[in-house]
């Protein structure tokens, strides 16, 4: 069980949320500007909130009251956004190996190969990001994020810029993994089939939580009506 309570002010925007990550997959759904990405960046340790208590898999990584603030690299969190953010001067292999420390060289090479294979990217190992397509970059980025076996994987619209086939293939590979995922999206079609709990975020507040299809059914019906001729 993971518990998250955050209060954070950024200019005129106020984020005030409290939720649990009880399911293996949790989708944070909401319109642009609702604060979804801010929540992920706070979870990852990239933004220091005004006040927060965050526990991942029972371990406190941020507790403003007790002065706990675990550094981003020690939170056991992987983070992949729409922009793959691969290191452009490194090959796909070296990108994946970047976050793996404390292993012998053969063990590290083995882990890198296994992670690339997991996302069907084993043939891309020697290429640099500039030589990869958007979908290939995302596969390498996911392999890199998961290489150190994080307890939590944060995905911020990871397939939004990809074609449907590539996006669905990546989602299928992710669903087959045994890792807790927080998935941010504002695209109902993209998340509809995910076996997930959903947290609906609007203007920095949680407005609904529960099983994804049950919670978002009304939104889907509204969307279908708007698409009807």
């Amino acid at each position, binding site marked *: 069980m993971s518990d998250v309570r955050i209060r954070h002010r950024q200019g005129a925007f106020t984020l005030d949320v409290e939720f649990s990550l009880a399911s293996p997959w949790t989708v944070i759904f909401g319109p642009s500007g609702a604060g979804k990405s801010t929540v992920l960046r706070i979870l990852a*340790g990239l933004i220091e909130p005004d006040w927060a208590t965050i526990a991942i898999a029972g371990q406190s990584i941020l507790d403003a009251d007790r002065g706990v603030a675990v550094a*981003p*690299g020690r939170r056991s969190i992987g983070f992949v956004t729409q922009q793959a*953010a691969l*290191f*452009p001067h490194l090959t796909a292999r070296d990108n994946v190996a970047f*976050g793996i420390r404390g292993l012998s060289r053969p063990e590290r090479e083995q882990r890198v190969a296994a992670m690339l294979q997991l996302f069907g990217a084993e043939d891309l190992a020697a290429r640099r990001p500039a030589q990869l397509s958007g979908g290939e970059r995302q596969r390498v980025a996911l392999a*890199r994020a998961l290489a150190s076996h994080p307890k939590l994987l944060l995905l911020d619209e990871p397939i939004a810029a990809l074609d449907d086939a590539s996006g669905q293939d990546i989602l299928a590979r992710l669903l087959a993994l045994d890792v807790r995922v927080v998935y941010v999206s504002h695209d109902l079609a993209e998340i509809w089939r995910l076996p997930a709990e959903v947290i609906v975020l609007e203007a920095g507040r949680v407005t609904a939580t529960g099983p994804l299809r049950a919670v978002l059914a009304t939104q889907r019906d509204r969307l279908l009506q708007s698409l009807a001729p």
Partner: protein
Amino acid sequence: MDLQALGLTLRLAATTTLVLLALGIPLAHWIASTRSRLRPLVEAITTLPILLPPTVLGFYLLVLLGPRTGFGRLIAHLLGHPLAFSFSGLVVGSVLYSLPFAVQPLSAGFHAVDPALLDQARILGAGRLRILREILLPLSTRSVIAAAALCFTHTVGEFGVVLMIGGDIPGATRTLSIAIYDQVQDFNYSQANRTSLLLVGIALIALLLLYARRSGQEARHV
């Protein structure tokens, strides 16, 4: 041609460039990444030598390194000789005078690196030193080369600071720019012309190498 002055000038420029890269890289990294309130002050101080007349900087350094200050006496005690009117003193003066030419391109280069890459490096467990060594520096090679070229050529051509701190001691502190001054004072214009052309050549070659490399890299990226 004053070969002694040529050798001393090249040695001074090379030493100054190495010292400036060693100082400028961590300083520029701090400037590019800090949220400290001291940052504007540090930026202003490191940029100050661009605006200050070289003689002003040279004068204060001469006073600071001389026997009238505790610092100057301490340095003289530690080194066994005063820094003023020595090669080491010239290096100190040159480093301070050319500091902005190292820090400005380096911090601009570090600023230009996509922050998303630095975020990823942090999440993947890299500390500040590893991020500098494995991400920022490899992605800022143009800036490092630009800083080195600017520091070298700027030091080769400096006059005021060198004259104030080092005087005009042949083989010890007389650089090419001071040799030109001496030659003009002696009405030896043909010699001054040859020495001046040498300085123009050094600066031009350094800049040509810099721009040729940049042009080649840009062509590969198109």
